[in-house]
Each structure stands twice: as C-alpha cells, then as structure tokens.
C-alpha cells in the first residue's frame, strides 16, 4: 500500500507540473488571441499525418538525442553544460572543413573522418570552460553561455570570410555559406524523398554506449559520484576535477558530433543558423528524459514533434515558432520544481497520511507526530 500511495503522489505532482507548463503556454496563446486547443492540436497531430512529417520529427530527434546524451553526462557529473549551441557550430565547422579538404577520399573513410573531426571540434570548444571550472572554479554556466556567443561570431566570420562558397562571391548574392560538401562525405538517406538519414543509427548506438559508460564502468561511476556528492567522492579518492573536465569534454564531443552529423546528413553545407537552438532544446530534452539514455530517446522524439509542429503552426495559423521556446522554458521550470516536490520527504509524509486517513478509514484527530515518520 505504501508504494501505491507513492505512485499516486508522483503521478499527481507530474500531472500538476504538466498542467502548469501547458497553462503558461496557454496564457501566451491567449494573449495572441489564438485558440489554445487548435494550436496544441496542430502541434501534436499535424506532423504525424504523412511520412514526410514523421521523418522530419526523426531528423530533428537525431541531433537532439546526441546533444542531450552529452548534456546528461555533464549534468550527472555535476557540471552544467549550456554551451552545446556553440559546440554544435564548432562540430559543423570542423566536420565540413575536413570533408571539403579531402574530396577524393573514399566514402567509408571520409564520413567517419568528418564525424571524428566534428567530435574533436566540439570537445575542444568545451575544453575551455571545462578547464576553467575544474582548475580555476569559474562558473561553467556563465562561461559556456559566453562561449556560445563567441562561437556564433566565429562561425559567422568563417562563413563570410575564409570558408565562403567562391561561387557566392562571383555570381551569387554573397549568402554566408560554405561550398557543398563532396558526395563522398554525405551520410546516406534512409527513405528516398525524405531527409531521414543513417545518423539515427549513430544516435541509437551512442545512447547504449552512454548507458554502459555511466552505469557499467568505473569511470562512469566516478563521474556520477563526483556529481552526486563532490565531497564524499573526493574523500573516496576520486579526482573530482578530472571527472568534471572529462564530463565537459565528453558533452562537447557529443554536441560536436551532432553538428557534424547535421551538416553531413541534412544540409550538406555549412549554413547560418544550422544549430537551430538544438543546444538549448537539448537541455530540456535531457531533463525531460530524466538524464537517462532510455528516457532521452523518447523525449527527443517528443521534442522533435514539438519543433516540427511549431513550424506548422507558424505556416498554418501564423503563431510564431518562438512559441517552442516558451514551452521549453515552462517545461524546465515545472520539471525541476516537480522533481524537488517529489523528493520532499515532509510533503510526501503529509500527503501519505492524509491520503491514508481519507481513503482507508475515518479521519483521526490530528496528532503532532505519529511514530516513525
């Protein structure tokens, strides 16, 4: 019976959190004068109506999964990586540069090489805040956010300068984008006529790898220990600083890989705005998925649905796609609040007692404390 109450308690709080997040979005929609039910209906059902919509959801779920796997590693290890946005862009740059530089290499070598380059690019970009946090104690949220702004400018500089498509300069409009990647660097599409590519397999395999790393290896255990309780971890002889640095570099590597997969699988040239806020959405996806690979995959698909759906509301009933940000912000705030309430032993105790007396017997007079507690 104890566990029934516990489950009811968790379900009630989770429901309340979902209702609050929806309510915040509904208020904004109300201000816009849009129909709340119609908007949610379009977001949640319209993308599922044809094969293109469904594959587009998965196309967005691929980078979301990769990014949030990295974020889950970093959050579990007690270092908050908000810099995925910049790390993705560095991954795009590194991956695209390698692919463009080696057009004659055979496909089975070039694709892995481009992805590896992207991974390294992202890892290097996150090394800076990771090192500053581990060695100098610099707040990693601030430094990763700053690295995002720096990355945007650096990316723009490369696309407008050294990496710009020469054709754009001669005949085009000067759009800041790189040349098309050589065919030998493309990740193949799975279903012709859609953009779904084999990157999805990479994402699924890596989800398993992250699970094994975090829960089945000593390194993973150390990193989680460093995150759960740095003091006890240090007392147990774990080098907490090294764990923090490693977690941050891994998080950057995953984001960089997501960028490289995105450029070789979807766009096939480096364009402006390629990261499309996946770095921030990844934080929400990771939290929504409980910072666990098994939760992250469905959560990435769900947020892929929201992203595609929000594009559709923009086209169909002209609700700006920024609405997704509102929803994501509301989801973050309600998830972390709900998590705290679920883990609050005193609140649970009060709930359990009231629940028990309300359903399983007559109301007893209030006593200050009933044994055990």
């Amino acid at each position, binding site marked *: 019976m104890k566990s029934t109450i516990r489950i009811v308690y968790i379900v009630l709080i989770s429901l309340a959190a979902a209702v609050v997040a929806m309510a*915040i979005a509904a208020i*904004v929609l109300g*201000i*816009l004068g849009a129909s709340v039910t119609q908007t949610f209906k379009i977001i949640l059902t319209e993308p599922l109506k044809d094969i293109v919509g469904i594959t587009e959801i998965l196309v967005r779920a691929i980078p979301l999964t990769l990014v949030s796997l990295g974020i889950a590693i970093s959050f579990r290890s007690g270092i*908050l990586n*908000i810099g995925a946005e910049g790390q993705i862009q560095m991954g795009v740059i590194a991956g695209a540069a390698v692919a463009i530089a080696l057009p004659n290499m055979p496909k089975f070598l070039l694709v892995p090489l481009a992805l590896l380059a992207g991974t390294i690019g992202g890892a290097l970009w996150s090394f*800076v*805040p990771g090192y*500053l946090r581990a060695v*100098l*104690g*610099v*707040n990693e*949220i*601030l*430094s990763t*956010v*700053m*690295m995002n*702004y*720096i990355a945007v*400018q*650096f990316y*723009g*500089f490369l696309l*407008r*300068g050294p990496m710009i498509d020469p054709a754009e300069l001669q005949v085009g409009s000067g759009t800041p984008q790189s040349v098309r990647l050589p065919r030998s660097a493309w990740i193949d599409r799975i279903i012709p006529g859609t953009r779904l590519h084999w990157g999805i397999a990479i994402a699924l395999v890596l989800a398993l790898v992250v699970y094994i790393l975090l829960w089945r290896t000593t390194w993973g255990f150390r990193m989680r220990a460093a995150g759960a309780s740095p003091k006890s971890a240090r007392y147990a002889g774990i080098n907490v600083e090294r764990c923090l640095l490693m977690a941050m570099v891994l998080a950057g590597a995953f984001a960089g890989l997501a960028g490289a997969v995105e450029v070789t699988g979807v766009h096939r040239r480096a364009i402006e705005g390629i990261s499309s806020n996946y770095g*921030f959405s990844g*934080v*929400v996806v990771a*939290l929504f998925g409980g910072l666990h690979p098994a939760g992250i995959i469905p959560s990435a698909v769900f947020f892929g649905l929201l992203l595609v759906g929000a594009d559709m509301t923009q086209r169909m009933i*002209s*609700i*700006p796609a*920024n*609405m*997704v*940000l*509102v*929803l*994501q*912000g*509301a*989801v*973050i*705030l309600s998830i*972390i*609040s709900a*998590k*705290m*309430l679920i883990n*609050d032993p*005193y609140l649970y105790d009060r709930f359990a007692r009231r629940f028990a007396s309300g359903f399983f017997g007559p109301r007893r007079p209030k006593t200050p404390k009933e044994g055990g507690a």
Partner: protein
Amino acid sequence: MNFFMFVNNVLSIGIPFSVALLLAALGEMFNQRAGVFNLGCEGIMSMGAFIGFLPAYYLQETALAPYANMIGIMGAAGIGVLLGILYALVTVTFKAPQGIAGIGLQMLGWGIAGTLFRFFIGGVTGVPGLPNRPIPLLSKIPFLGPIIFSMNGLAYFAFLFVPFSYYLLFKTPWGLKVRAVGTYPRAADTMGIPVSKTRYQALALGGLLAGLAGAYLSLGQAKMFADDIVAGRGFIAVALVYFGQWNPLGILGGALLFSIAQSLQLAIQVLGINFPYEFAVMLPYVLVIVVLAITRGSAIKGPTELGKAYDREKRI
C-alpha cells in the same frame, strides 16, 4: 581626429552603454546577496525590453503619447517583479536547483518576448525613445557636462541608484537581513528573520531592476526592439557582480569599464583599422570569461550560501 575628441567620443558612447548593465547587475547583486543565483536575468531583460517598447509603439499617434515611455517603464518594472517572484517560487519555495532554473527562466522570457513581438509587430520598428534631459547649469560644464549631465531620466536613475543601493544594503535593517539570509540563513532563521520572505523580496527587487534594464535597452539605447536585443547582457551582468565583489561601487566600476572597452572597440573600428568585425563583437564575451577567471580567487567576499536553497527541516 585629435586625442581629445577621441576620448570624448569613447566616453559619450560608453557611459550610456553602461546603464543597462549597471541596473541589471545591481539587481543581480541583491539576488546574490540574499543567496539566490539568478541566471534568468537575461530573460527578464528581454521581457522588460519588450513591455517597455510596447506603449511607445502603440501610443505614438494618440493623446497618451507623452506618457507612453512612463507607462512602458512602469510595465517593464512590473513584469520584472512578476518574473522575479516566479523565479522565487521555483527556487525558494520549491528549492529547485538555481543554475538550471535560471536557464529555464531565460528561455521563457526570451520566448515570450519573441513570440509576442513577431505576432504583434513583426519587423524592426523604431520608437522615439527616451529624450535626453540636460540638467541646467551642470550640462554646461565643458567636456564632462554634455557626457554626464545630458542623459535620459532612466540613466540618471541608474547612477543615483548606486549610492542608494549601497545605503540599502549596508545601512538599513533590510539590507542586513538580505546579507544575513545569504550568508548564514540558519542563524538568520533562528533570530526570527523570515528567510524565504527576505529572499522573495530581494528577487522581486532584482527582477524590477532587470526589467528596467531591459526597458533602457529598447527605449533609451536602441530605440527599437528586436528578439535578440539583450544579446547576453543579462549574463554579463551576472559576471559583473562577481567582478564588483557584490558591492555597488565595484559593480559601477565594472559596468563602466566594460562598456567603455566596448565603445573603445567601436571607436577603433571607425578609425578604419582593418579588423574583422566579428572579432570586435566577440570582445565583451571573451572579456567576461577573462574577468571570471581573474576574480574567482577573491570569492571569500561573496555570500557563502550563494546558490543553495535553505531547508529549515534539514539536519546538519
């Protein structure tokens, strides 16, 4: 261009630049002194900028036009208080981890401002903005007069708020309470100081100032609104609090240094020194990281309970 004019240019651009940073950082200082780390400052500024801009945009042609800026500033302050209280609910009452809650608030504020802006206004549109109000006599002082004594009302308010917040924080009972709940909440609680209430108050004040900072960006500085108008200034403000060692005067110095460095970079670009502008735009963000790396050693002066929710029931 002679040296004198160059300095004049740098200061006359740089000093007004510092106002938004100053207001937001003073607000963040009160938050952090009370022990709450608010990274949502950026989101509150976005909302403040949008709400501040709105009346100026809609009331341009009406009889209310002279009051539009005032209404906008009031609105921005109001929305700031509201979001500050929302943040307090999440981090003080529910005791949620503050770093991630701040990012949530940032997304929320940024998202709402962007959505409403795109739906109702669509494109970048200018507004008259806050007029400069030269102070009689003082603005006639050569060199400094036109720079310091002919700014808009909100800028004067920001600079006057520096000594006031020093007084508030160090010379009033409320300031003592704020510092107590940020340094030793258990002792404060034992002495009968309401920890949660004081933190709520500090967050509401911080939100108010962040909202004003946003309104200054759209009404005083850019005289228009765009989605990304805040461009990381909320986060820079948080870094300035570290740089200023949780002291209003230090924060004033940091805000001035920061924005003068930025206007120096603009002035150098104008001089025609060839330099990719992207690197110039990067400069303040790089500077933040450098500042954070330098000032971490002296964190002793900071509130010791920064970032920790206070749980009365928890056994030590």
